[in-house]
């Protein structure tokens, strides 16, 4: 019995030892075992820094300058010459319409319309827009009307009847004037062109005379040339050397004679003769040198005169050429002016021969619809065979130089400091944007009550309907506490961050995530400035391998070796 009891106790003792040993081992290695299962975090200290708070958003580009093209009559579209997205030039045919006619139409509408557009084109070449061209055309027509009335002393009554005859007459005069320009019959041109033409002509003739005179002078200078000055200079140099040599010979002879005289040499007399001969030779060489120098000077002078005459001749030629161009330009301007007047008269003829309400038809009885401006066709609302009304546009044109607008919503807090004129960059297009205005978000949009709508004007490589992503830098401030934006989370209690809390245990440190509610002061997408119960020693959890909550145990990420 006692033996059995001892055996039992021994077994229990062994079990107890094993149990406590196992628990002890698990306790000592609990850190190691547990860490393998803990989520791994990346954290950093809160630091001060600058935040470039950006506002960004996406919107659809809509064109500003959209023109509705209305048909001039009710009818059926016979032919549609364009489709949506086509780029058209001003005056280009858009479509032809088969009108519902009543038999009173003028069939010369096509030519008249072309003449009308030709007059518009004259003004468009001056850089005016289509609307300005129409206004200028109206003004010139009224001025022309006054001139015609003044010239033909017409009275107010029955102006229309006399006007047609006067216009016809003026039309003929203008055609004659144009022919005078072409045949250089300047004096027959109307007096308003004379002063300029005469001045240009006078300048041209003067230039021609000057050129002739310069040519003569140049010829004379050429004929006065006596030779190459360089060659003559070489001869003069040679003469100089000869003179110098002769002088040396003379000195030698003279010194020899003097020596002979002084030494009482009996050959002094021949030496004297030799010296005199040397002197005579020297004098002749000196004369030759002087003549050579004189020749050189004359040659140089002649060359200079010829050079000046040549330059004057060239200048006279340029002047003549300039005067000729001036005269041509003056004549061209006069011709252009006359042609413009002819066009205006043609329009007057068209308009006086037709009433405002008469439809101008093409030869085949259709009415052509032309593009009033260059642009892109959008909003094509009819196809060939469709019925169209004068009250409904057939299509819409976006002007070539049209700007676009983009709008999106942002928080009222961010929009508070925005002012029109701030630039924004377009991320997904080669374009620029400028803030045009800040408006209350409409109830029909997706915005809430505390949101504002930002309206941008966009220019660049943009098409209507294109989705554009814009961003603008709004705020640039220094903040005491900044953290990476991805460290900030949100829940029902508001915005918060998770910070690292350390607790020491007998077997080492334990790390826990602790939630701290914060307020985001600014955010540029990369870093955010926050405010809350944080200090510089706060260690913020930035990344975690799995979702963690307040109080969860975590482990630090191992630093790369």
């Amino acid at each position, binding site marked *: 019995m006692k033996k059995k009891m001892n055996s039992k106790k021994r077994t229990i003792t062994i079990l107890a030892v094993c*149990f406590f040993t196992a*628990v002890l081992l*698990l*306790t000592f290695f*609990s850190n190691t075992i*547990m860490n393998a299962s803990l989520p791994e975090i990346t954290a950093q200290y809160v630091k001060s820094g600058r935040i470039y708070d950006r506002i960004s958003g996406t919107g659809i580009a809509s064109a500003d300058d959209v023109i509705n093209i209305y048909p001039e009559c009710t009818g059926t579209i016979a032919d549609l010459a364009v489709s949506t997205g086509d780029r058209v030039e001003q005056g280009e045919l858009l479509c032809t319409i088969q009108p519902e006619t009543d038999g009173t139409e003028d069939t010369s509408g096509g030519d008249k319309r072309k003449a009308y557009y030709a007059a518009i084109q004259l003004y468009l070449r001056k850089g005016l827009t289509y609307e300005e061209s129409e206004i200028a055309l109206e003004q010139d027509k009224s001025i022309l009307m006054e001139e015609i009335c003044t010239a033909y002393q017409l009275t107010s009554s029955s102006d229309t009847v006399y006007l047609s005859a006067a216009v016809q007459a003026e039309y003929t005069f203008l055609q004659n004037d144009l022919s005078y320009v072409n045949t250089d019959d300047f004096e027959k041109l109307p007096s308003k062109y004379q002063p300029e033409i005469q001045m240009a002509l006078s300048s041209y003739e003067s230039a021609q005379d000057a050129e002739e005179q310069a040519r003569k002078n140049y010829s004379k200078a050429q004929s006065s040339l006596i030779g190459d000055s360089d060659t003559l200079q070489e001869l003069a140099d040679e003469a100089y050397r000869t003179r110098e040599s002769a002088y040396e010979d003379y000195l030698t002879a003279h010194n020899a004679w003097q020596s002979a005289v002084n030494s009482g040499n009996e050959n002094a007399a021949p030496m004297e003769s030799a010296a005199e001969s040397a002197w005579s030779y020297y004098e002749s060489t000196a004369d030759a040198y002087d003549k050579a120098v004189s020749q050189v000077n004359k040659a140089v002078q002649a060359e200079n005169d010829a050079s000046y005459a040549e330059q004057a001749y060239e200048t006279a030629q340029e002047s003549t050429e300039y005067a000729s161009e001036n005269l041509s330009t003056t004549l061209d301007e006069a011709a252009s002016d006359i042609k413009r007047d002819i066009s205006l008269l043609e329009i007057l003829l068209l308009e006086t021969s037709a009433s405002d309400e008469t439809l101008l038809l093409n030869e085949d009885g259709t009415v052509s619809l032309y593009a009033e401006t260059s642009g892109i066709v959008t909003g094509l609302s009819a196809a060939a065979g469709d019925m169209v009304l004068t009250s409904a546009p057939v299509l819409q044109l976006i002007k070539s130089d049209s700007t676009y607008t983009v709008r999106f919503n942002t928080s009222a807090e961010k929009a508070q400091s925005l002012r029109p004129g701030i630039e924004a960059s377009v991320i997904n297009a080669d374009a620029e944007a400028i803030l045009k205005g800040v408006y209350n978000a409409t109830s029909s949009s997706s915005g809430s009550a505390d949101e504002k709508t930002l309206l941008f004007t966009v220019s660049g490589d943009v098409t209507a309907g294109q989705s554009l992503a814009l961003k603008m830098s709004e705020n640039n401030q220094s903040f005491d506490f900044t953290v990476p934006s991805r460290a900030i989370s949100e829940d029902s209690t508001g915005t918060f961050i998770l910070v690292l809390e350390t*607790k020491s245990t007998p077997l080492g440190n334990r790390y826990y995530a602790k939630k701290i509610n914060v307020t985001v002061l600014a955010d540029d997408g990369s870093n955010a400035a926050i405010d809350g119960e944080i200090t510089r020693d706060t260690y913020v959890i930035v990344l975690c391998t799995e979702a963690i909550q307040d109080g969860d145990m975590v482990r630090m990420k191992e630093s790369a070796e």
Partner: protein
Amino acid sequence: MSRKQTRTRIINISLFLLLGFASVLFLMPLVLTICDSFMTETEIFYNYGAMLDLKSDSIYTANSVALKLIPDRVTLKQYADTLITSSEYLFKFWNSVILAVPITVLQIGIALTASYGFARFGGRIRQMIFLVYIILMLMPYQVTLVPNFLVSEQLGFSGTRWAVILPGIFSTFPVFLFTRIMKRIPKAYLEAARLDGAGEIRIFLHIAVPLCRNVIVSVLLLVFIDCWNMVEQPLLMIDDSREQPLSIFLSQIRSGDLGLIFAAAVFYMIPSLLLFLYGEEDLVQGMSYSGVKT
């Protein structure tokens, strides 16, 4: 069979049934705890969620409680979470050991010396002190809890483990038991030892204590289990939750994960069980010795 035998048999059967029922009643919680510690969280929520009014958005809870012995799906995840994944429960286990072992050992030591004094030395003062001990023994410990808290605060160890250990080592119940058994030691043994030249300490250590071995083991068992399962004292005295024993976590059944509580409970009862099995015979003998009239 005579009427007397029949009657005896009926009585026995009734007693058997009664005791059997009582046994099942006593054992059921233990068996349930062990079996449910192998259940999944879903099954626990389903079966016991209604009892504890536990609600979860992702787990279905039955309207009534179902006591289930055999799990639908056996899992060791609760034990893995208790022992491996989280070291929290291991630390709490050792906190229990740190509290229970010193209290048990020191209480036994102090009680033995006190009881030797009460048993060996007479006098009216001794009788009065022993009477005070008995009165204190009759009081529930909750009565002395607040005075203990105030004293520990005055002495400056309030909020620490010493606030639990120091009051715990001075217990009257072991003194009472040891005194009764010490008195049963024949005086002749002690006189003979004294005559041989042994002093009081030697007599106490080599004669009195070995003769009280069974009672010591039984008292040790009882004291350890009492200390192992204490909740109020550490809850009141210890502020830092990291120093609190596992018994406190097990008592907070509503706030914890049921599955973890079952697993931790099974794990927590193992030391008590082992100690009981080790000293089972000594416990019986010790209780019987202390009950014999001197």
